[in-house]
């Protein structure tokens, strides 16, 4: 009766004794011995030495003994592959046993032994078993194909098992069908490209029929497989949905969640006007709520999924707020998830209830939970404007409790509320200041300092408060130090008279006594700003901040769509795509939701139907980070670029000219050290400029005729940068122009969606020349559907710098109330030619000589029939200045210079050949370096060199123009 005695033998010589027992004649004794062996194996003892003896027991009629031996084999076959071969015969024999249970057992076990030699022998028995008359054997064999595929995929394909497996989908037994589907799905997952499952309306119909008949687990396999199917039109999607909905009443939560997955995915294809769509939405809510009465672990899985569903389709659960109220004895993981969903569902209709609950939670015991509850109150204030006042007073009540972490959390969220509703709740500042001493967490301290700095003019003793923080400046975390620096500068700008000393103190602390590059550079920038142009400083530091958005922690839409395809699985629990936690090739297949169509949709097979993705910009992550920083991050004084510039500058200085091509000049001058200017030019970089210039010059010559005007530089016609289909209906077209010294980006925003767009914002990624918007994107009225607005966005070149490839590549992020969109565009280089680009003749001559050959590049511009003077004046319009002109052998030679915004000089020689279309024979560049030319023009090699005396980069352009 009891097996526990097997665990008790610990004496020495045990193995030897077992050996004797295993070889005993008595069946009972043998069985006992094998049980002991298994018991030892279970607790982790090494009993592999008994391998031959155990295998000897395999030849038996006793099914129980056989199972035990098989168990042993699965564990140790790998360690004794040669011995394992002894077992093969018995396996093969068992596969022919009249008893179907034994046949199935043999094939099941063989599939679990990962020894090549055994695998070879598995094929024949497996083939037979796949066609066995008994469904029990067939369903076991179906899974065995998946096992074999995992060991040796090639073998499975060569032996044609996949086709047999496919045939099993039409089997008469529902369990065989389910296992075959499971096996095929598993194999298909490791072969994303193969068309293994070959789902078509006929096979789908079979699966749907089997769905009604098989076990609960089989239903899960089938539903998971259905979720990968892409119906060809909305009608098919609807008919599948109709047949899947009954599953929502299944007692097994996994069946319900898998059914929800299928419905959520196919719903995407249904038109919202359809009656059925509304019915389906209504049907989804009750089963989701029912999942919450399951066991806590399942509740957790369900809640993580509901979190996704609420983000995707908030309408489903919008009336179900109450079921997410936290129960006192819910496990903490359930509580935290419920809280998350409560915030998402909060709306004007239910805010009173939610707030009452949240206040209740804020007095609970679990610190994490309490903090989250407090934070949730803040989120409610930001999300539901009508409730803001009540939220603030609730938070004040909580601050009165003086519970340390509650107070700190409350201050952090109040800071956000201030940002959302500026100048509304400042009356509470006094209460906040009372709690200054109790703040010991960096985030709370930083938030408090921000508040003091931001409202310095209303807090009488702001200077004292900030000064008190300054005492332990070096012990603070970076977050607090940065905030303190900014706050004191703000204070100084607001009350310059009394706080001069304080600002001096903090600037010296930040720049001289700190080894944190961020802090030091922000310090330098402020210092520089304050000392050169206090008005600009005011504009930068006290700039109007963009409002923060209502929702936080939203999952990025493409990821959300992908995760919806993974409802019920681990990916939906972690809120991460499978590739983030699965090793190897499996699960890398990107899943996407089907596009909403009324007509036929492109039929994609299997799992591989990637959603229409926007053009991916390589550093999307950075961009996104930057944008988020702009919107919701800890408040940064002034435009966010200020900080990033600092970081970039620091890297540059340390980099010693690795990337010196694009060093912003102002950084060079104020760092005070000139050591890094001796760096040698990198030739490739220079050529890049040449290439970019070359393509730009083609435009400048304006080959199409006289569009270019003398008053300004050439402006290319607007092109579409961001097509509407990639940006949820927002179309952006535009061009760049330079007019009297200022660069601007001329945009046309067109709303091609059905909803009104508002809250536009724009941000550039770091780029070669530090282009950045000089003002926020101002769209005054919300953009109605089918409306366009033209905007001229002024740009400056003080943004942060990163070399791009191609050099004039610009990555842009545009945000509106719907989403964030990314696109990249190439800007013409001539917008960067500055007005003072005329070099002195002497200097020109000296520089020209010093340019090394490898910095030259040559272009040829054809089909241009302008005279030398006309060319000269046209180019001057674009800030390319003619320094000298001469005539050699009937050819006009123009010597020209231009200067880029970052101080790089480019010198050029332009040769105009009246008749001969060949390139200038002399001054030929290093062979093979004929710079690629865009448009229609080509320029000759560009010599570029470093002129140490000038501390500037020089680059000479030599161009030949052939008419």
């Amino acid at each position, binding site marked *: 009766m009891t097996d526990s005695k097997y665990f008790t033998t610990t004496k020495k010589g045990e193995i030897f004794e077992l050996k004797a027992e295993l070889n005993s004649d008595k069946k009972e004794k043998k069985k006992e011995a094998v049980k002991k062996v298994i018991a030892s194996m*279970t607790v982790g003892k090494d009993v592999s030495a008994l391998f031959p003896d155990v295998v000897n027991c395999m030849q038996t009629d006793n099914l129980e003994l056989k199972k035990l031996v098989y168990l042993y084999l699965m564990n140790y076959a790998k360690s004794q592959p040669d011995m394992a071969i002894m077992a093969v015969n018995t396996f093969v024999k068992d596969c022919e046993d009249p008893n179907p249970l034994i046949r199935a057992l043999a094939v099941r076990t063989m599939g679990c032994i990962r020894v090549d030699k055994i695998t070879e022998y598995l094929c024949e028995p497996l083939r037979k078993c796949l066609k066995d008359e008994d469904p029990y054997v067939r369903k076991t064999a179906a899974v065995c194909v998946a096992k074999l595929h995992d060991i040796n995929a090639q073998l499975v394909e060569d032996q044609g098992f996949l086709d047999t497996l496919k045939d099993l989908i039409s089997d008469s037994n529902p369990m065989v069908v389910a296992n075959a589907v499971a096996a095929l799905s598993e194999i298909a997952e490791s072969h994303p490209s193969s068309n293994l499952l070959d789902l078509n309306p006929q096979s789908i119909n079979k699966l749907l029929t089997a769905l009604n008949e098989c076990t609960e687990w089989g239903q899960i396999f089938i539903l998971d497989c259905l979720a990968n199917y892409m119906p060809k039109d909305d009608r098919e999607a609807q008919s599948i949905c109709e047949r899947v909905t009954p599953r929502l009443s299944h007692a097994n939560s996994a069946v319900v969640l898998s059914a929800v997955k299928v419905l959520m995915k196919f719903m995407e294809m249904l038109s919202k006007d359809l009656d059925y769509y509304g019915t389906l939405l209504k049907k989804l809510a009750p089963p989701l709520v029912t999942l919450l009465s399951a066991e806590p672990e399942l509740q957790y899985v369900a809640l993580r999924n509901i979190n996704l569903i609420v983000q995707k389709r908030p309408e489903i659960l919008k009336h179900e707020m109450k079921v997410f109220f936290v129960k006192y004895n819910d496990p903490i*993981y359930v509580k935290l998830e419920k809280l998350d969903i409560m915030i998402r569902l909060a709306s004007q209709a239910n805010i009173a209830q939610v707030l009452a609950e949240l206040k209740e939670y804020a007095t609970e015991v679990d610190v994490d939970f309490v903090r989250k509850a407090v934070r949730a109150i803040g989120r409610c204030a930001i999300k539901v404007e009508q409730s803001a006042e009540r939220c603030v007073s609730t938070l004040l009540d909580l601050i009165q409790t003086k519970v340390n972490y509650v107070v700190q959390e409350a201050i952090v969220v109040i800071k956000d509320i201030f940002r959302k509703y500026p100048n509304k709740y400042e009356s509470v500042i006094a209460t906040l200041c009372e709690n200054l001493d109790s703040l010991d967490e960096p985030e709370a301290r930083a938030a408090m300092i921000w508040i003091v700095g931001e409202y310095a003019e209303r807090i009488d003793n702001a200077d004292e408060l900030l000064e008190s923080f300054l005492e332990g400046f070096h012990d603070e975390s970076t977050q607090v130090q940065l905030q303190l620096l900014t706050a004191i500068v703000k204070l100084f700008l607001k009350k310059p008279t009394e706080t001069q000393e304080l600002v001096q103190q903090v600037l010296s602390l930040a720049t001289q006594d700190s080894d944190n590059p961020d802090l030091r550079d922000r310090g330098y920038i402020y210092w520089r700003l304050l000392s050169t142009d206090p008005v600009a400083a005011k504009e930068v530091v006290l700039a109007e901040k963009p409002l923060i958005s209502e929702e936080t922690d939203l999952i990025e839409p493409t990821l959300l769509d992908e995760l919806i395809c993974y409802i019920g699985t681990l990916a939906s629990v972690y809120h991460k795509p499978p590739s983030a936690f699965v090793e190897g090739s499996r699960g890398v297949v990107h899943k996407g939701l089907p596009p909403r169509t009324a007509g036929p949709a492109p039929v994609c097979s299997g799992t591989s139907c990637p959603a229409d993705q926007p053009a991916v910009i390589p550093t999307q992550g950075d961009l996104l980070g930057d944008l988020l920083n702009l919107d919701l991050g800890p408040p940064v004084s002034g435009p966010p670029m200020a900080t990033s510039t600092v970081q970039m500058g620091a890297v540059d200085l340390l980099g010693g000219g690795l990337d010196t091509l694009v060093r912003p000049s102002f950084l060079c001058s104020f760092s005070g050290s000139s050591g890094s200017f001796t760096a040698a030019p990198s030739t490739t970089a220079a050529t890049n400029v040449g290439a970019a210039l070359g393509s730009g010059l083609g435009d400048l010559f304006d080959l199409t005729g006289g569009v270019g005007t003398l008053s300004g530089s050439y402006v290319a016609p607007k092109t579409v940068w961001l097509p509407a289909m990639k940006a949820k209906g927002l179309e952006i077209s535009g061009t760049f122009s330079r007019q009297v010294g200022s660069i601007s980006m001329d945009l046309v925003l067109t709303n091609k969606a059905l909803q009104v767009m508002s809250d536009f914002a724009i941000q550039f990624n770091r780029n070669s020349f530090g282009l950045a918007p000089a003002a926020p994107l101002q769209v005054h009225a919300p953009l109605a559907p089918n409306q366009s607005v033209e905007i001229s966005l002024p740009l400056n070149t003080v943004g942060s710098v990163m070399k791009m490839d191609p050099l004039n590549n610009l990555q842009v992020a545009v945000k509106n109330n719907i989403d964030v969109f990314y696109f990249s565009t190439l800007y013409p280089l001539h917008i960067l030619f500055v007005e003072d680009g005329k070099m002195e003749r002497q200097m020109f001559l000296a520089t020209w000589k010093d340019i090394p050959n490898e910095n030259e590049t040559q272009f040829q511009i054809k089909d241009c029939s302008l005279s030398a003077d006309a060319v000269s004046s046209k180019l001057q319009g674009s800030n390319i200045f003619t320094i000298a002109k001469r005539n050699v052998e009937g050819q006009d030679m123009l010597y020209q210079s231009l200067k880029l915004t970052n101080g790089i000089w480019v010198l050029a020689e332009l040769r105009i050949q009246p008749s001969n279309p060949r390139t200038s024979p002399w001054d030929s560049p290093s062979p093979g370096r004929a710079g690629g030319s865009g448009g229609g023009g080509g320029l000759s090699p560009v010599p570029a060199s470093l002129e140490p005396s000038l501390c500037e980069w020089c680059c000479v352009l030599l161009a030949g123009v052939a008419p």
Partner: protein
Amino acid sequence: MVRTMQYTLHCGDSESGCKTPVVKQSSLEVTCNWKASGDPNPPAALCLPSKVCGIWRRNAVDAFRVNVIHARQQVRSPVTNIARTSFFHVKRSNIWLAAVTKQNVNAAMVFEFLYKMCDVMTAYFGKISEENIKNNFVLIYELLDEILDFGYPQNSETGALKTFITQQGIKSQLQTKEEQSQITSQVTGQIGWRREGIKYRRNELFLDVLESVNLLMSPQGQVLSAHVSGRVVMKSYLSGMPECKFGMNDKIVIEKQGKGTADETGKSELGSGKQSIAIDDCTFHQCVRLSKFDSERSISFIPPDGEFELMRYRTTKDIILPFRVIPLVREVGRTKLEVKVVIKSNFKPSLLAQKIEVRIPTPLNTSGVQVICMKGKAKYKASENAIVWKIKRMAGMKESQISAEIELLPTNDKKKWARPPISMNFEVPFAPSGLKVRYLKVFEPKLNYSDHDVIKWVRYIGRSGIYETRC
């Protein structure tokens, strides 16, 4: 899918386990990796033929033990990812059941399977305890082998499993060919939960309507949330393959029928109070034909033999709250609390509620409590930080009261007492949702017994779920 899933039965005292370094002796793990594909690194496996599999398995178990079972902090999630390996666990008393995977498996399915495994084990050997697991480890291996293949759960109905896996070992010798094929067709068949050829002398069935009523009430007596989660449990002793049809006072069905015979139903049901109830949602045992329920809202099925849970349901409307709790807490100075709690029973006076227990939380710094109650017994339990008031029976429409004086020790703790809600337990002989069984018809065309010959019993039990009133 769940390919590299490995089921670990870990038993052992988690508290003592973390103190004693010799874990082996105080704990037992039955690691059942029924797929050698539990191998995490096939390439390495080729050059390391010695027990890579075993090592990994043990690694996984050890990782789980160190990071979850003996973790210093409270478990923050039932799913843990350690070194790209995901662990799912559920706990039954001091036994941890864990599943391991490296793939993106269906998480809901894994948990459902773990629960199912618990059910199966309980059905075989009773309570899941360390002792029982040690005593039945061979059986557990066999069960796992049968119900989980390569991470894919197979038929896990105990009724079917018990036909060929028994606690005394497998019935292999006795089986005839017919028996064998009967087993396999049942295990894989459409009606995998019932075998053919069941015979009873007396055809009998029992229906239990078990409801748990949940309430969260504000101190002012406002219902913050209330719902009933109910279950219909059926015990059937019926011969053959009986076709059953279950009917209850579901609003949708009644209204549908009402259109035809409005007068009739109106008269017959008016006397019994509520006519019909609105069911928010219900789920069914896998024997119920879901498509039929979806189209006609009729519940038809062939039941498993013996006991099973036919359906679960949830209602939120028109719930009869059997008790009302009226709390009154007064803080008298810093060292004294006065608590008065009144409970009112709210059902027919002829009915009796049983096992009534009211739990009134007390602050952590309580030094002494004096209690006076009109009925039942009340005690202060210091270890539970609560006053527990027990009443054996209470009829409907009655009222009872307890008052207590709580002495507090002065503390410096700034944090206020959280005032957990007052909770209540009870059992009442009716369904708080108002659900009524209307019929359960049995048809067995092949055997000669009719619906009238079946003896049917129905019982209603309403219990408290989480029944809390904030104070």
